[in-house]
């Protein structure tokens, strides 16, 4: 049965190694399937599938998936990127003993991204959002025995946790006042003030996920994971926030102040990212800050009301970034393309300015003649102009400029026009509500002014100019190099507030007791005992799943002074149980937290921040525990701590001789279990009714 499943599943088609088939066109097979899937989905567009998960007095939870052009497009894009990265990592991580674990985690991440993309209500989106977060945490922790990898994964998870709590509250607000959470209800905009609150909360969580300004600090620190993880994250995951905002576009447009907020956050992030990128020397962090600025640019486009452009940008950026990341090893020999000229040739700059003005203006006019008008915001046209100008400059500086000039002008003109045509096509297929009056002239002009000043300074001023040697400039660079000291304060206030507390053991035991209490609380409100049974099943499944896929192998041969760092079954159970405390979807504590937050909104709104903070603090503590006692190599502490805990908590499922089981067999079971757990988690309907 298992063999059959594996033989005929989709995974064989997209497995890591390219198929050993002679004709090359057969390698296109999975992509052909993608196209078929795409056309199938486009035909289905407009249909919504809804499943009631739980519905009683307290919980009105339902999944909903809707197929529409936007989600189909995004799904195809993410699958395309994901399949390629999956194949890449199959060859790239061949020397890694835990490669299969990595591959499965990659697939799980992809599936959760897929769920998020297809979702048509806030709860489903939230669940996808959370699954992405947890899977990414596990992926970033691939080398869990490196404390650095651990720290960066933890940082990412905690910062995202802030946003998750906001999203969570938004979902509960929706269930309280609308009794359901679908996007269409929000988009109708019946309750203006409530919608503003919900959308603001969602935007805050988007800020944490898409690395917007005060929450961007986790992004550049994620280089401790294998390169494919970075590629997937920067290409397919980080832009999920943009997609969510695009889905909520009709209701966002009804709130101009919020749009102004979005615009300002986006532009600040964009400026910061560009500045930070300047002082980086190493390739991967350069790419990370570039992603940050690109995400800022995308959010800025959303703030301007250009949703189509934002979606288009998100896709093109994803494709570009994935290529750059996967190819990052080849940047060692950097060919210095433009020599540092001491004096600028102003005549040349003048030529390029004239040419690029003509190119940009004419391509915009031509699209106006032939098709509908694109978003047409002046600020974005400015960026287009800058790009074309840079292109023309590098053409004009070539030796063979005389023969290249005309073809290159033609080329860039065609490319620009094609871009505008693509935008129009996208606009027609996705049908965004698009309003011209949404511009914020004052703010837009301010950003435009800053960018024009910056660009003209870089264009016209020589490098030897005395302006660059002033103390002000030096101070600015020192400031930028220290990232405006943002991370320092983040570290002190949010990441590690409990650095000096002792006696964590007490806290853990307390946590376990509270988990038991929370679960008993459910019993009072769930008279049909559905939830408790469901949560027991999922808990068991989670335990078994992690037992099999547990990160137990060391990467390489241990050397003399280094110890074998293994996660014993005990520790794995502990880590999973700890994860179950913080209210991830499909764990029992999810319902508990849901209930607590809902009650506090209804009866004691003042306690809400305290409760949300307590969840965040608990997750911080949990991650600290995971890092200090389970993942890192503080052996003395670990042994002491584990021996003192009651043995029966872990001893029940403890296998005596884990070496005996065949790894191949293990993989098969894990494969089966993943599918089973997915079925179980996504369609509990079959179990209950």
């Amino acid at each position, binding site marked *: 049965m298992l063999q059959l499943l594996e033989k005929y599943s989709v995974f064989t088609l997209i497995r890591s190694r390219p198929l050993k088939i002679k004709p090359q066109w057969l390698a296109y097979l999975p992509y052909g399937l993608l196209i078929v899937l795409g056309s199938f989905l486009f035909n289905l567009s407009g249909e919504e599938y809804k499943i009631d998960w739980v519905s009683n007095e307290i919980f009105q939870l339902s999944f909903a998936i809707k197929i529409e052009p936007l989600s189909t497009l995004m799904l195809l894009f993410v699958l395309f990127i994901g399949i390629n990265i999956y194949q890449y990592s199959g060859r*790239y991580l061949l020397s890694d003993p835990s490669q299969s674990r990595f591959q499965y985690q990659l697939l799980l991440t992809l599936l959760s991204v897929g769920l998020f993309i297809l979702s048509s209500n806030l709860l489903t989106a939230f669940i996808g959002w959370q699954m992405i977060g947890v899977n990414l945490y596990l992926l970033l922790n691939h080398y869990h025995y490196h404390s650095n990898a651990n720290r960066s994964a933890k940082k990412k998870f905690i910062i995202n946790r802030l946003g998750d709590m906001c999203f969570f509250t938004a979902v509960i607000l929706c269930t309280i006042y609308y009794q359901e959470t679908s996007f269409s209800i929000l988009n109708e905009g019946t309750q203006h003030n409530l919608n503003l609150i919900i959308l603001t909360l969602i935007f805050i969580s988007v800020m944490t996920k898409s690395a917007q300004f005060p929450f961007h600090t986790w992004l550049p620190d994620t280089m401790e994971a294998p390169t494919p993880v970075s590629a997937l994250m920067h290409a397919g995951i980080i832009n999920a926030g943009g997609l969510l905002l695009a889905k909520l576009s009709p209701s966002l447009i009804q709130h101009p102040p919020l749009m102004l907020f979005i615009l300002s956050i986006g532009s600040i992030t964009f400026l910061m990212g560009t500045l930070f990128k300047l*002082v980086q020397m190493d390739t991967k962090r350069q790419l990370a800050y570039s992603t940050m600025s690109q995400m800022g640019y995308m959010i800025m486009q959303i703030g301007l009301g250009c949703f189509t452009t934002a979606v288009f940008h998100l896709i093109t950026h994803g494709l570009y970034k994935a290529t750059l990341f996967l190819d990052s090893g080849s940047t060692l020999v950097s060919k210095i393309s433009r020599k540092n000229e001491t004096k600028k040739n102003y005549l040349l700059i003048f030529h390029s300015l004239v040419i690029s003005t003509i190119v940009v203006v004419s391509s915009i006019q031509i699209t106006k003649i032939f098709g509908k008008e694109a978003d047409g915001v002046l600020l974005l046209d400015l960026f287009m102009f800058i790009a074309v100008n840079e292109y023309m400059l590098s053409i004009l500086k070539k030796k063979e400029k005389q023969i290249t000039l005309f073809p290159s002008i033609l080329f860039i003109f065609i490319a620009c026009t094609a871009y505008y045509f693509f935008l129009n096509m996208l606009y027609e297929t996705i049908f965004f509500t698009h309003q011209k009056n949404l511009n914020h002239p004052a703010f837009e002009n301010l950003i435009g002014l800053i960018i024009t000043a910056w660009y003209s300074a870089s264009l016209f001023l020589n490098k030897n100019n005395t302006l660059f040697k002033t103390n002000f400039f*030096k101070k600015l660079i020192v400031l930028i190099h220290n990232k405006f000291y943002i991370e320092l304060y983040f570290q002190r206030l949010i990441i590690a507030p409990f650095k000096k507390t002792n006696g964590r053991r007490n806290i853990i035991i307390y946590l376990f007791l509270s988990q038991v209490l929370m679960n008993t609380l459910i019993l009072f409100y769930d008279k049909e005992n559905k939830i408790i049974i469901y949560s027991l099943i999922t808990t068991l499944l989670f335990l078994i799943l992690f037992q099999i896929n547990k990160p137990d192998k060391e990467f390489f*041969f241990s050397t003399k002074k280094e110890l074998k760092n293994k996660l014993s079954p005990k520790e794995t159970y502990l880590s999973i149980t700890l994860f179950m405390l913080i209210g991830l979807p499909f764990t029992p504590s999810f319902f508990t937290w849901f209930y607590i937050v809902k009650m506090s909104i209804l009866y004691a709104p003042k306690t809400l921040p305290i409760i949300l903070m307590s969840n965040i603090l608990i997750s911080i503590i949990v991650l600290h525990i995971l890092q200090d006692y389970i993942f890192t190599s503080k052996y003395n502490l670990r042994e002491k701590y584990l021996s003192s805990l009651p043995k029966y908590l872990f001893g029940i499922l403890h296998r005596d001789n884990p070496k005996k089981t065949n790894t191949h067999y293990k993989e098969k079971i894990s494969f089966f279990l993943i599918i089973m757990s997915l079925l179980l988690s996504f369609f509990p309907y079959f179990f209950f009714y």
Partner: protein
Amino acid sequence: MNVALSISEASKILPVNWPLPASIAVNPLWDLVEKPIERVIAENGSYLAINGSLSAEEYHHLLKKDKITKNDLKKSICEFLKKNKQTEIPENILHSILNIFLSNELFSALNKNELSIARKKTIFQHHDMIEIKNSMLEFFLLYFNNHVNFHFSENPKNGLFETWKEYKILKDKAWKDFFKTLSKDKSIIKHEILTLLNINENLYIPLFKTALSQFIGWAGLAKWSLRPNNPFSIKNFSLDDILLIWLCHLYEKKQFEKSNLFNEIKHFLEKPKKNKNLYQLLNKEPFIKERIKNNFILINTIEKIDIFSIYFIYQSAWEKKYHSQLINLITPQQGVAPSKKIEAQFIFCIDTRSEGLRRHLETTGAYQTFGYAGFFGCLFELNDKINHKKSLQCPAIVEPHIKLSLECNEKNEFKNIISNIFSAIKEAKDQQLSPFSIFEIFGIYIAYFFYSKNQNIKCFQNFTKKIFRPDEQIYFESLENFLSKIDYSQFIENLYCLLRSVGLTENMSEYVFICAHGSEMNNNPFQATYECGACGGNNGSMNAILACAALNDHSVRKRLEERSIRFGKNTQFIPAVHNTTTDKIEILTRSVNIPECILKNLSKASGLLQKERLKTLPSQKDCDFKKSDWADMIPEWALANNACMIIGPRDLTQNKNLERRSFLHSYEPCLDPKGEILENIMTAPLIVVHWINMQYYFSATDPKIYGSGNKAIHNVVPSLGVMEGNISDLKFGLPLQSVFFKEKRIHEPRRLFVIIYAKKEHVNKILDKHKHVKSIFEGEWAFMHVMEPK
């Protein structure tokens, strides 16, 4: 002791770290080679945490599998005791020591000791120490950033320290006050801080060692930049400045922040850790305690074996088995029947990978093969304007005096236009404010490149090749131009040496191939480590072409004939290159007609070698796929598992499978009555080979310090090297993927075993003349065996 002297003394523990684009294998402890290997490691173990050997568990495993035999172990114990001036060792005591070495208790004690060392917190893990290290690493990166650095460089003489001082003053007011307490003169500050910290003069060297051992990569780069003739220009980056910055940080921590770091460092310096000896190790084991009891002679001898020596005794016992096997294999054959007429002769590089090719080539026909260092007597600096690359085409020890540049005058207009249009996109993307719209305009088309690169589609490769690389014909044309500029007279001595040491002074066949080697891979920052070491980590084909052109030249031949070298009537020298990734041989000239049977046999031999090699590679894919696959971290195993070097005629090793583990250098003792050629070999190629061997050895035994870590998380610093993860020291040595696969060792760390087929007097004379060569063998960094020719 003088400060400057103690810095130079302390810097001996640093390796010379070559920038990765032209990285060269180096013995990381080369400056300490006068001392025996185990003493060097024991003395510097507290700074660098190196072992230089396998773990106890692995030796135990080897012992169980009979890869370390009882006899060999006994021999190596004997040798060790003799070295330590134990004159009389009674047989029964030797026997009981051997029993201790064979016992499980010793291994368990060693394991416990390893555990306790790993658990102990050293000062290098002190969080203030790590903080200082990280802030310095961040600053080094900023210092090398060309975008930003020009703001600080008002005075072009400003070095690392001045820039750092300016940076710190701008950053923090506390640092401004700190610098007010110190004098302004840079040369005085170091003395000032050292006196303020109240450090005894004896402790200067250990203090500097603790500082420098944290920055092996960057400080090694600074050490490299002292070399006179470097292919890249590097900024003012000196060891003095690195040390000075570290001392400033240390003093600042002591003065302002009330950190206990300084006290701990002082404690660490004043009470150096003593290594345990065998007796102390076994003292707690009851089983062995009984055996030792009251046997005072045994206790005395045991006390002289310290813990590092135990590991090296096992190591040399393990190596001994290989040595005896190899010597048995290579007994000189008597009465070799004169073979048929030789069709062609091949001169290969001494690289281990050529050994397999030579073995297979000789089976296909009547061919004669030789080995010589891969630069083939041509030392020059190349400025390749086609691939925008500067390189030193010579071994690292030598300095070339000739500069050549390679240009290509391609006149294909269409190609020029297309390549310009494409490259301008890349250039425009790297500017500050343009990437946003550039991504939007061209991002959609990138999907095709992304996909075809990932699937490694051939038509895509051909497309990029056609656009961005010159046509082959034009390439060869420009090569000929390049050759015409050279004055051959400088090479004649080198070429004479090449022909004589190989033994090609007469009986030249019609075709003599000079075959260099190079590798081909994609997206791999470590490409230089796969290339020819004798050509300075570059493709050796240029050297082969140059050597052939010189040897085909009439005037050169005349002058060589004056020195009693007899060229055949129709002898032609043909350059070729062996692609080590695909094992294919490419002929690098168009002007000679080569008989088809030779070409056929060449491809047959390369096919045989490819078959043999593919069995060992992890993914059983064709090499054509591997060479252009951007996801492949292990395109080939390069020189992994190298173990020996054989200096002698090919007759010794003919028809014998040496498993691609040996460097084969041709040498005819009868042509060298005075031993000059042998001297040349033992002072240049031997040392390069020793470096290669030691680099692999230490990368395999101490991957954390002398290896560059996991390739999957490497973060490239353009034109300098790689870091691991977010921030780390610049990495030195080979990555894990070059010496390990999963949990298996691909490279078995063995010290070099040199077999020389020459007279013993010659060898001894040379060793006496060159002390550093002698110390390699005396300190057991490598082993030697001399075979007397009859």
